[in-house]
């Protein structure tokens, strides 16, 4: 049928169903499409659209077009965009990893800087940090710890594989750092992506 185009009446039924805001009964279709065998036109259309990205379906005597069910996932698409972790988030993650379980106040005490709410959200969004209960004591502060995903992302078998203070010292990572130049370096790395 396709190769020869659709007949006029089938075209009219197709357009009617497409433009309608609601599924239509045979009678309603006939109201729009005019003279013709609605049921036959629907059968032709259903056959025609088989294997397409859309299909003609009947629900309770009413007809409408819908996206093919196997393609429904396209309608809500998730796209991942690579983003480099900020310095604040990286430091916070490191503190959690070395000191877990650790409260927000403790993280701030170690960093010497307050952390914004967004920082922990980012780390949890990344799947690297999880809430780990509350510490019994004044204020019952929420505690944070790293996840299994954290270990696998950073290629660590366990938290014991984190380099110790001595290792960091040997690698020159504990030398007093010129904060300014370190920041510049991090920022320029950030521009790469």
């Amino acid at each position, binding site marked *: 049928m396709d190769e020869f185009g659709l007949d006029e009446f089938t075209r009219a039924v197709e357009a009617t169903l497409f433009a309608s805001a609601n599924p239509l009964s045979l009678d309603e279709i006939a109201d729009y499409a005019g003279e013709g065998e609605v049921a036959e036109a629907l059968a032709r259309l259903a056959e025609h659209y088989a294997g397409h990205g859309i299909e003609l379906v009947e629900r309770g005597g009413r007809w*409408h077009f819908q996206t093919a069910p196997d393609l429904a996932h396209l309608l809500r698409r998730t796209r991942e965009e690579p*983003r480099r972790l900020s310095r604040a988030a*990286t430091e916070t993650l490191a503190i959690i990893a070395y000191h877990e379980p650790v409260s927000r106040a403790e993280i701030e005490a170690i960093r*010497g800087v307050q952390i914004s709410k967004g920082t922990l959200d980012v780390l949890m969004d990344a799947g690297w940090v999880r809430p780990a209960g509350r510490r019994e004591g004044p204020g019952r502060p929420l505690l944070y710890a790293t996840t299994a995903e954290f270990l696998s992302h950073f290629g660590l078998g366990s938290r014991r594989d984190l380099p110790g203070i001595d290792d*960091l010292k040997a*690698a020159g*990572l504990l030398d007093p750092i010129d904060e300014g130049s370190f920041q510049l370096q991090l920022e320029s790395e950030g521009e790469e992506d």
Partner: protein
Amino acid sequence: MEAETFELGVRDEAELTLSIDGWEGPLDLLLSLARVQKVDLAAISILELVEQYLAYISEARALKLEIAADYLVMAAWLAYLKSCLLLPKDPEADPSAEEIALRLQMRLQRLDAMREAGARLIGRDRIGRDVFVRGAPEGLRLVRKSAWQARPFDLFAAYGSVKARSTPPLHVVHPRSVMTLEEALERVGRMLGTRLDWTLLEAFLPLTEDPQFRRSALASSFVAALELARLGRVDIAQDEPFGPLMVKTS
């Protein structure tokens, strides 16, 4: 709408006069009058058009109809244009009357072109009137998710940085070769026991290759000599500022 304008234009003058409020300004009226004259605006006679406009306005005035100021301003301007067109050419005039007439004609063409374009636009197959989009689209949603990236090195470097920042600074003073005041007092006091006469302060210093120790010893010995002088055990003499310091037992 185009048809309406045209229709108004071809009515007899009495009727035109009565519908003065129907025009969208003098240019609209001029265009309608021009439309009566000829279909091709590029070939209309501006002089004839001017006369039609002036006749129209004077008739309206005769009927004591209220005429908006801008129609009268246009009438005055067109009367002036008419006189320029009729008078012998003034070679000094810039722009010339013909040029002004041409601009008026161009202006009418511009308005006419846009009027026609508008009508053609409105007459196209328009969505919601002639063609229809899908009545019940499922809708699309794109959820953007951040794929956070950090390398192990970033993590360790960050911890190192935190540690380096938060570790309390420890000040270590390296041992330096010095002669304390006590040592100098003891040494100078002891040596004074054997030397009575005026002696250069430097003579009290120990032999050393270390310039730092020598400076320290000199400073301490000087202060020791001052202390001994205060106690009345020595006299100190200096002949001139920055001259050699001499010490002797009192």
